[in-house]
């Protein structure tokens, strides 16, 4: 962004063109007359290595001129910078526009001689216009006339973004302290904005490179709106004694008469460094106010008000230094107050209580940044006690108003929060439907279990037989182990138990409750012979000896003598047991 600060040319001493603008009988602008152009080197004689200016002055408006992109410079001549300016001069009885094209050149160290910039053609208001040729004489020892120099001073070269600063444009007096005014003062630079203060002009004695010289001084304020290193320079027209208004003259100066010599001057560039205001330590309510302020006590119109009655809160701030910039505080959001900020330049608020429950005005956060200390200054407006009477306003009105006051985004969120796999809702994902239907499988298992349970309850005989078969399998395995160990008594005891288990479902009864006769009843009912019944009796007789006075069968005398008989008995019991099991 190229910011050109154009300062309005104010009213000058008599005769004043601006005064004539206000007259009803206005003068005409010389646009229809034929444009003319002239060019000259300033100075016309110079030495190798000197800086010279080429000025081309065209009596036409800048917008109507079509300027060539490059001029036919002599060899090795390279312009250091170029600029252009426009001014409206009062000539005769009409306004005459004047546009100046200015080039700054450094003469190369070549042989002395006369160098000519040939004539060239431009277009002005659509008509061709010839710019005449001009010559520069380069000599070894050219007379050094003191040139007119435009100076620029800035109040500070290290600035914060948005901090106003002063730019002083100076034109030192010439020989015999002849002073000239400046017109069309422009400060050119990227990232700069004109300040609130208007231009102030004066003639005062300033220190010019160690020499006190009376100078024409124009003070203006600028505001940087871009951070980083910035460069600015000033340009202005000399205007003789056409001052922009009443002017204070300090020092002994000479004001020459006659027609002013409108000459476009440029200054050397000035560099400044701009940094953003720090984020650390920023207080609530920072609106961009720069400088150190002190606040007057806030003044409330009245502290006894009715609901809905507006009351004005007047604020006052004073800056400690010249270049302070006050940006008024923003109205805070409040559900109990409707707050309207005053129109600038007034600083205050109109407050409307929405309920009679409030006891004070809301605190209004506000702060400024002091560039000198690099810190924020708290200027919060404190609450003021009030008495509010009357019923509250309707709720919807209050909500609407609060919504209108709300106007800032939230800060960044530090934590991402709970994650979702995808934005696609589960309503559209088959996997989630499957998950939602998972309990159905549980219900199916439950139904199968209940069906089995009901069937078993309806068929107890089947359950008993199944349990008996299961128990018999277990007893048979134990029987085999006892037989392998040679435990004859154990074999007979297990055989008796197996016979009872096999016979129990037929009664039905608990196996332990059966006796030998009960088993024989089932045995005989199956149509078996009495010989096998005797085997059953013998088995029970031996097994029941555990209930006798000497239950230790293993130690009973004569057991070893009957071992072979016992083995035969166990073998005979096998088919009996198989038969009983087969009936289950």
């Amino acid at each position: 962004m190229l910011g050109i600060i154009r300062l309005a040319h104010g009213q000058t001493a008599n005769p004043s063109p601006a005064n004539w603008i206000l007259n009803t009988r206005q003068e005409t602008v010389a646009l229809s007359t034929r444009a003319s152009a002239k060019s000259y080197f300033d100075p016309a004689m110079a030495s190798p290595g000197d800086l010279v200016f080429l000025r081309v002055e065209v009596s036409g408006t800048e917008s109507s001129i079509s300027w060539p992109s490059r001029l036919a410079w002599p060899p090795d001549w390279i312009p250091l910078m170029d600029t252009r300016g426009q001014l409206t001069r009062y000539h005769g009885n009409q306004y005459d526009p004047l546009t100046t094209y200015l080039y700054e050149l450094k003469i190369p160290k070549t042989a002395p001689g006369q160098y000519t910039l040939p004539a060239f053609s431009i277009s002005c208001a659509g008509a061709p216009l010839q710019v005449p040729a001009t010559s520069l004489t380069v000599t070894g020892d050219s007379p050094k006339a003191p040139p007119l120099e435009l100076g620029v001073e800035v109040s500070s070269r290290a600035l914060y973004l948005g901090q106003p600063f002063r730019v002083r444009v100076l034109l030192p007096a010439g020989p015999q302290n002849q002073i000239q005014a400046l017109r069309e003062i422009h400060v050119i630079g990227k990232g700069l904005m004109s300040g609130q203060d208007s231009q102030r002009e004066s003639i005062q004695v300033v220190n010019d490179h160690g020499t006190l010289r009376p100078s024409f001084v124009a003070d203006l304020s600028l505001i940087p709106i871009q951070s980083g290193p910035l460069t600015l320079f000033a340009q202005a027209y000399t205007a003789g004694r056409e001052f922009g208004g009443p002017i204070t003259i300090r020092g002994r100066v000479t004001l020459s008469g006659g027609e002013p010599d409108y000459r476009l001057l440029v200054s050397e560039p000035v560099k400044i460094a701009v940094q953003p205001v720090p984020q650390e330590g920023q207080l609530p309510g920072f609106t961009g106010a720069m400088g150190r302020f002190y606040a007057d006590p806030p003044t409330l119109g009245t502290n006894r008000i009715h609901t809905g009655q507006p009351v004005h809160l007047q604020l006052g701030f004073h800056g400690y230094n010249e270049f302070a910039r006050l940006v008024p505080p923003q109205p805070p959001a409040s559900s109990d107050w409707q707050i309207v900020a005053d129109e600038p330049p007034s600083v205050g608020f109109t407050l409307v209580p929405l309920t009679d429950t409030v006891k004070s005005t809301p605190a209004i956060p506000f702060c400024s940044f002091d560039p000198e200390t690099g810190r924020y200054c708290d200027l919060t407006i404190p609450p003021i006690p009030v008495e509010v009477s009357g019923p509250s306003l309707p709720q919807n009105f209050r909500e609407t108003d609060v919504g209108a006051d709300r106007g800032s985004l939230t800060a960044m969120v530090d934590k991402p929060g709970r994650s979702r796999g995808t934005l696609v809702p589960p309503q559209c994902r088959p996997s989630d439907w499957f998950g939602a239907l998972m309990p159905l499988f549980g219900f199916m298992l439950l139904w199968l279990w209940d069906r089995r349970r009901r069937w078993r309850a309806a068929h107890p005989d089947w359950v008993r037989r199944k349990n008996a078969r299961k128990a018999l399998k277990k007893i048979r395995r134990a029987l085999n182990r006892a037989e392998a160990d040679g435990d004859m008594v154990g074999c007979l005891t297990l055989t008796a138990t197996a016979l009872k288990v096999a016979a129990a479902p037929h009664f039905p009864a608990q196996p332990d409750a059966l006796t030998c006769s009960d088993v024989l009843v089932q045995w005989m009912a199956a149509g078996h012979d009495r010989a096998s019944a005797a085997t059953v009796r013998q088995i029970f007789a031996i097994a029941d000896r555990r209930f006798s006075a000497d239950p230790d069968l293993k130690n009973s005398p004569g057991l070893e003598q009957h071992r072979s008989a016992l083995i035969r008995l166990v073998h005979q019991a096998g088919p009996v047991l198989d038969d009983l099991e087969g009936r289950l």
Partner: protein
Amino acid sequence: MQALGHGIRPFCTFWILAWLLATDTSAGAGSMTGREWFDRGLALSRQGLFPEASQAFENSADLRPTAGAYVDLGLAEWHQGHAGKAILAWKRALWIAPANSQARENEAVARQMLDLEDADLLWYEEASTWLSPYAWIWLSAAMLWLAASSLVLPVVLFGARRDWHRLVAAIALAVFFLSLIGNAGVVGRMNLGVVLGESVPLRLTPTTQGEVIANLSSGESLRRLRSLGHFDLVQCANLTGWLAPDQYALVCPGSVSSEH
């Protein structure tokens, strides 16, 4: 037993290696997790590097959609002047977490600043904004199976159901049927979208030369009605017209033909 041990060891080793490889692949060769992208975006935004921050937040949201990532993505886009993308991000944050006050507040502020109105929702769509889509589907499932359990389990386990079993079943069924409304609203809201570009032409016919009915601003809400070729029929405020799919984005990007 020893042979069994020899058999199990390679089996376990294989599966452990497979798991490690799988986790390494998911972590990605040099790629970052969603949380890492989020933290990176946060750091970049604090330095004022909002284009890079929004890219980081977008990566985080792609890998791990969270309300926080979308809120910050919206703020980063807003700072770049992308109102449409910012509002879209905040709407997605609200889609995930309807109770997220920051996303709601930011969207309201943005709409107030830009003087934009939100899309008109049907009554059941409005009701569906009370809970997240996940909550609606699981509420429906839980209530359905609670009702079924209240009716079935007492009979199976205790032989008879009591009055309070019937009461629980009735309440659960009622909530189930009410939650179906929310689910329908979620499905309806899947067609809501946000205009991304500035002065997007809404055309009368689905052609590039179609008559322009209106130019939509960035951040305006719309409802997609149907698609035809390279155009979608959308409704924005009281206007219905055809819009190129690359000029808007749906809040729920997974819906049919919405990945623009």
